[in-house]
């Protein structure tokens, strides 16, 4: 074995060659790797390093405000505090939750559940652990933030619900769920929804969600490794973009807030619905559905038990009864039968029938609500005293199909299209309908109940209001209107809704309307009228009461002992003033404990009508001033319009 030993040394000469190969080789590998990391993948790592230091802070947009027709705020916003959890910066989840749980008295499981709901979103995005912290809770968390890395208090403008907020009208907000989020974001990449966003779930909030939500803004901030904001390198090239949130559009309703308040007060304690409408254009002035619910609870979040309680309530607090509740119209339906009878010349206004207190057709006996009978009555008196026998006779002579023809012409049995909540069509029975649904021919004994608004008949409170508006205005069916204008947060008009005439009722002549209106006026204005409790001093009011028997009760049964479920529905529909109607009130009080329409529903309408005239008197000078302002504005507009011409001249 021969090796070249170097001089006197034990070192082998050729090993130096290999050593330089290793040296140069390894250095080259390192340089190649350096090139790969810095040049080839540089862009990628630059992006990661930017993501490390730049955090996007979402700025929630305040929702649009909902105002009444006079600009009074029905639903506004105020700032609320949330507990935000930023996963990226949380060092130890368990400890953090333990500390938070002790500070806020919230079980750890609640936090865990919140976290699971937001699973899969980027780690720098904050997760709301608890909404709407009290000031005390905010200060508790703030003073312990040293122990809570990654926990933050965020401020967001949120709905400021006042007591007696009309829940069904305005609706409520709820957190968006995953499927809804995907559905909404599919065609909306510009202003996408995010988990935890609140969206409108009912009423105006839901219908006008796209306008109300506004546009989220964002702010880029620089943070250090510990998630603290840092102001290092604040030079031009680090300028971080900031986009302000755009508040949602304001919705101006046709509602009159003062009248709405009165309506709520007048209807307090009752179940059912009230609709107040302008018969000249279908604009709704106030609208109530009871029982309501507290819309603010959704901002906090409901427990499962509270949910179940709400859902199992026999009076369906979530149902908007103004459009979704169907009731037999009772005697309020007699107006329809009266119109049909006069128009079809079955009777003339002066024809008199004798009411002995009962009516026999075939082998069935139908009773009048006064067992003793009303004696000789004509149309006006029959309406005024709500004589059932008169209408039994007229109804039988008309037949169910002819009644239905007029009922449908007047807008019953079909949706009116109030763009608010789910609307039911009601029901106008005909022989054909019975054959189709029950597979049975129409029995002659079924007609008399139809003529007094019982039996198969169903109307919704909005239909009842619309029916009386049509009678009041002499045959125009207006689409119920709830939204007046949509205005951007800077006051720019975005959208204006004008009254929409659905159609004019055919068949019915003005004289017929006049005759029925006369009868309806005496219901309220005559001393014998059933609706006299709706009177307002100095105003001619027309209306019709209705008491719907849910089951027939024995005559001398004390109604106050009957359980709620089996009590009469009290109805009242009215319009005023008779000479030129400008307001319609429809009251439906379910299972009312006080009594029929005259005793229970009419006084409610009376209170509303009274307030209406009181407000009208109050507002007259204001209205005059507003009109003056309007002319000034128009003058300005016209002068602006002239400007370009001026310039051209120059």
């Amino acid at each position: 074995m021969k090796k070249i030993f170097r001089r006197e040394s034990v070192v082998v000469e050729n090993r130096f060659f290999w050593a330089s190969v290793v040296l140069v080789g390894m250095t080259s590998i390192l340089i190649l790797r350096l090139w790969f990391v810095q040049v080839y993948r540089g862009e990628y790592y630059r992006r990661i390093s930017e993501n490390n230091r730049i955090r996007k802070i979402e700025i929630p947009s305040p929702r649009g405000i909902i105002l009444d027709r006079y600009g009074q705020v029905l639903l506004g916003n105020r700032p609320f505090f949330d507990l935000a959890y930023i996963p990226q910066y949380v060092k130890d989840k368990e400890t953090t939750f333990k500390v938070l749980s002790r500070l806020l008295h919230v079980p750890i499981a609640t936090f865990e559940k919140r976290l699971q709901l937001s699973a899969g979103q980027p780690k720098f995005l904050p997760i709301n652990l608890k909404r709407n912290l009290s000031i005390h809770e905010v200060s508790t968390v703030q003073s312990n933030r040293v122990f809570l890395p990654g926990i933050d208090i965020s401020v967001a403008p949120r709905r400021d619900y006042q007591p007696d907020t009309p829940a069904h009208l305005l609706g409520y907000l709820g957190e968006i769920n995953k499927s809804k989020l995907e559905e909404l974001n599919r065609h909306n990449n510009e202003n996408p929804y995010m988990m935890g966003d609140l969206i409108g779930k009912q009423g105006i909030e839901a219908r006008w969600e796209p306008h109300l939500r506004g546009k989220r803004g964002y702010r880029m901030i620089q943070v250090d490794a510990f998630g603290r904001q840092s102001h290092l390198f604040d030079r031009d090239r680090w300028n971080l973009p900031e986009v302000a949130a755009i508040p949602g559009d304001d919705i101006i309703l046709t509602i009159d807030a003062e009248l709405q308040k009165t309506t709520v007060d007048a209807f307090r304690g009752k179940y059912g619905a009230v609709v107040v409408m302008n018969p000249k254009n279908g604009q709704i002035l106030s609208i109530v559905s009871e029982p309501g619910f507290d819309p603010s609870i959704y901002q906090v979040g409901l427990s499962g038990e509270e949910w179940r309680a709400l859902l199992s309530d026999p009076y369906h607090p979530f149902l908007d009864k103004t459009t979704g509740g169907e009731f037999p119209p009772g005697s309020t339906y007699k107006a329809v039968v009266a119109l049909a009878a006069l128009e079809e010349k079955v009777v003339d206004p002066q024809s008199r029938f004798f009411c002995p207190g009962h009516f026999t057709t075939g082998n069935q006996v139908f009773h009048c609500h006064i067992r003793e009978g009303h004696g000789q009555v004509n149309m006006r008196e029959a309406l005024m005293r709500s004589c059932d026998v008169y209408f039994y006779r007229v109804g039988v002579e008309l037949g169910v199909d002819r009644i239905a023809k007029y009922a449908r012409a007047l807008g019953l049995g079909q949706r009116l299209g109030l763009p608010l909540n789910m609307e039911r069509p009601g029901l106008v029975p005909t022989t054909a309908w019975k054959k189709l649904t029950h597979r049975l021919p129409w029995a002659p004994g079924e007609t008399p109940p139809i003529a007094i608004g019982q039996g198969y008949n169903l109307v919704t409170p909005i239909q009842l209001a619309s029916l009386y508006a049509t009678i009041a205005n002499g045959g125009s069916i207006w689409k119920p209107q709830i939204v007046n204008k949509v205005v951007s947060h800077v006051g720019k008009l975005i959208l204006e809704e004008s009254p929409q005439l659905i159609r004019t009722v055919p068949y019915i002549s003005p004289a017929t309307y006049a005759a029925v209106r006369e009868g309806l006026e005496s219901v309220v204005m005559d001393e014998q009228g059933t609706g006299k409790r709706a009177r307002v001093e100095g105003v001619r009011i027309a209306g019709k009461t209705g008491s719907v028997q849910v089951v027939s009760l024995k005559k001398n049964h004390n109604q106050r002992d009957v359980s709620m479920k089996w009590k009469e529905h009290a109805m009242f529909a009215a319009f005023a003033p008779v000479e030129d109607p400008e307001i319609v009130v429809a009251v439906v009080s379910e299972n009312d404990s006080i009594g029929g329409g005259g005793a229970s529903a009419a006084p409610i309408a009376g209170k509303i009508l009274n307030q209406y005239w009181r407000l009208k008197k109050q507002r007259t000078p204001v209205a005059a001033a507003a009109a003056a302002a309007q002319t000034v504005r128009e003058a300005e507009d016209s002068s602006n319009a002239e400007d370009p011409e001026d310039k051209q001249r120059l």
Partner: protein
Amino acid sequence: MLKTRKTNSDFDGTALSLGSDIRESNQHYTRMLCVIFALLVMLGLMNLYSATDGNSFFYSQIRNAALGIGLFFTFGWLIAPRTLNTYAYWIFGFVCTLLAIVLVIGDVAGGSQRWIEFAGFRGQPSELAKVTAALVTARFFYTNKLRAAYKLSDLWLLAGMIGLIFALIFPQPDLGTAGICVLISVSQIAFVQVDRKSIIIVASTGLVLLIIAWFGLFHDYQKLRILNLFNPALDPGGSGYHSLQSLVAVGSGQIMGKGFMQGTQTQLQFLPERHTDFIFSVFAEEHGFAGAFLTFVLFGAMSYVALEIARQAKDSFTSLLGIGLTAFLFLEFVINASMVLGMFPVVGIPLPLFSYGGSAYLSVCIALGSLISIDRENLGLFRRVKPFGALASKFANKTLRG
């Protein structure tokens, strides 16, 4: 094969006559090392200023650099290699004593017991051990010269000494430093003729020991670091965090870098161990490929010149000491750079002249100084000048050998 042992004196006579034949005029090696040293010192200090935002670490490093430059000149121009040869075992004994003291009463920082404090100086003897390992190996082969290949039985003393160093450093715990001491020695052994059978035996025992070590000796964090090498993104918040953030820092520097004091990863503290193990990430982030490439070339050139100096050396000791010191500088550079570039597990190996740390800085200066002294010895400069190193050597020869 007959094993022939010869004494030192047999070689001493021939060394002079042979040397002048092979020698070329290569005094520029000294100059080159000085230039590279100066450049790296400046770059290192500048970079540390950025990494520490000019705090007390930086000023402490200035003091280290001043001391280091002093040692660089002392070891380069005043102490001849033969002085180191003479005192090699004494130095070994001294360093081992210090390491033993560290193990018993050392200061604990960051979970490791690595520091001792004496008369206001705070040092890390394990850093000195690296140079000592090179010194002791060189001295061993100088003393035990064989014409034939070395067998395992010939190397037991060396193995024992290096094993002692390893055994004293490893329990601190500091696998990186202990390992690099062994690697330095192994690099030196690689330059001598070793019996093939012995290599196989050592290699296979090493493998078995490694397996035993993996399951018995390594700490969990050490295992994790090795595993993380394969997938740093696996747990970016945990043990892979260092590797990943380092890569991000280096990569985001791109070609021209973000500028001095402008590294976002560094200045916003996303990069861990900015002033020690991951100091080079700072440099790469702020000065980009342009700066990092230049630095790599400087380190490569420094190692190459060092290797050339060792190649020119005339006797076993200077030659092997040169090889050992080259291995020390080059290994630290390669391991640290690989670690920073995500090619090697995170081990506590500093980057020479860049990382903060007094003992490491001084060790590197001593190593570079000694390389210069070897070059000067090769050129025969120590003979003419007769500095006290040469005098000391003569004195030592007289007293120790009689």
